[in-house]
């Protein structure tokens, strides 16, 4: 469980997050949605510790991020897997080396054990026979899959995905969504997905938080989002043709 309490963050005096309160539950795909510039990525970066909040608290379980020592933060990071928007696979390493990378630093496993675990993770995301390829030899969808395999390599309790479908075709997007959802349930992870893709939201959004101009305007799930009274959220949803048709009963 991740709990965000009264979180504020600004840059050069301009507020970007204005008092965010939200809880992310384990075993669920928790979505942060909103238009570009609404503060989704800033919230995600605060959650994973890449940015320091101006005020407010973020708790992992019963541990507050602000009161953790550097060592405790380092320990927590081992328990966090992240899928970056551009996958962020290491150019200097092959597919298998990318997945083995966190294991090399944080486990005492032998090479054979690390390789076995990496292959297990790659099989989970359906990347087979590409162990020796470099990231630039993979398609965008494959890179995302390898990114997920690397994120789950140390069997983390928390998984963060920043725009997992950006730049992917609709079919691959669905596969990636299903993959994230399946992994979340199988490993009982607390998964937080940052997206503005309506298909993903309706497909895997167990819990949805809508952000608008730095504030959290609405919280719900994929069953209630289409019946919302929140005008800003309706406007956001209606930008998507399929969702608009559902709302308008077509």
């Amino acid at each position, binding site marked *: 469980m991740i709990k965000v309490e009264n979180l504020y963050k600004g840059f050069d005096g301009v507020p970007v997050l204005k008092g965010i309160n939200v809880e992310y539950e384990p075993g669920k795909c928790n979505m942060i949605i909103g238009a570009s510039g609404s503060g989704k990525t800033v919230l995600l970066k605060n959650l*994973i*510790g*890449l940015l320091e909040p101006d005020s407010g608290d973020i708790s992992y379980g019963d541990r507050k991020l602000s009161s953790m020592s550097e060592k405790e*933060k*380092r*320990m927590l*990071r*081992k328990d*966090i897997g*992240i899928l*970056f*928007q*551009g996958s*962020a*696979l*290491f*150019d200097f390493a092959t597919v298998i080396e990318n997945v083995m*990378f*966190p294991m*090399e*630093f*944080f486990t005492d496993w032998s090479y054979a054990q690390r390789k076995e675990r990496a292959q297990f993770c790659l099989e989970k995301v359906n990347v087979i026979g590409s162990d020796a390829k470099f990231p630039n030899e993979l398609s965008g969808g494959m890179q995302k899959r390898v990114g997920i395999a690397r994120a789950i390599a140390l069997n983390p309790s928390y998984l963060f995905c920043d725009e997992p479908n950006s730049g992917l075709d609709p079919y691959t997007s669905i596969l990636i969504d299903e993959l994230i959802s399946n992994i979340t349930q199988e490993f009982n992870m607390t998964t937080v997905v940052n997206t503005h893709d309506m298909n993903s939201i309706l497909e895997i959004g167990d819990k949805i938080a809508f952000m608008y101009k730095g504030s959290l305007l609405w919280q719900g799930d994929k069953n209630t989002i289409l019946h919302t009274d929140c005008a800003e959220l309706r406007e956001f949803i209606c930008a998507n043709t399929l969702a608009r048709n559902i709302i308008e009963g077509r």
Partner: protein
Amino acid sequence: MLKKMFIAVGRYILFLKMVFRRPDRWRIFWRQFINEADKLIISSVLLVGVISLFIGGVLVIQTASNLENPLIDKMYVGYMVRESLILEFCSTMIALILAGKMGSNIASEIGSMRITEQIDAMDMMGVNSAGFLVLPKIVASTLLSPLLMLLSLALGVLGGYLVVEFTQIIPTASYITGIKAFYNGFYVWYSCFKMSLFCFMIASIAAYNGYYAKGGSLGVGKSSTQAIVTTSILILLADLIVTQLMLY
């Protein structure tokens, strides 16, 4: 501008503090060290070798054409070529050339990792990205660059010898006598030290510029250019200071 400079110096020092933390795994560090030694030093051998060979030859011709006075022994051509190579060319000039080659390589590599979030990914895994990426580059270039200096010296002398041998601009025996005359071993140490210092500056300043690159591919290009310009100026400044301190 002065404020900006102080901020940059402070950030550079904090960056070095991150870089010089104890490596998480020594095994990984040594593996990276060997990779970087290959990428930064071994791959520079050809460039340094070719330049040194030609400059050695050119120095012989230039020095010989300036020492046409019959009262001056021709062996001084060899002596002056050797001293020019040891004192300035093999360390400072080669370092300036490496500032372009190594500096742009390091800054663009780390810069592109920064803008594609690879460094963020490492940090989020709890890996000291600065230590993992930069420390092996700094250690490899600082420790192994004196070998490039010695190679440059040997090939510079050889270049001079080949020109003497084929053109007979001065007698070959005089050149060899000059090369061996009044040898001061301290000058070689001084030159090795300079080379190490300059390569430390190249690796650390280029890495610093790459590590804090922002603004997409344009930002990477900018950081690379910034690294080369800054390093070149600082190498010349450090050359002046070190020479004053060590030779006088």
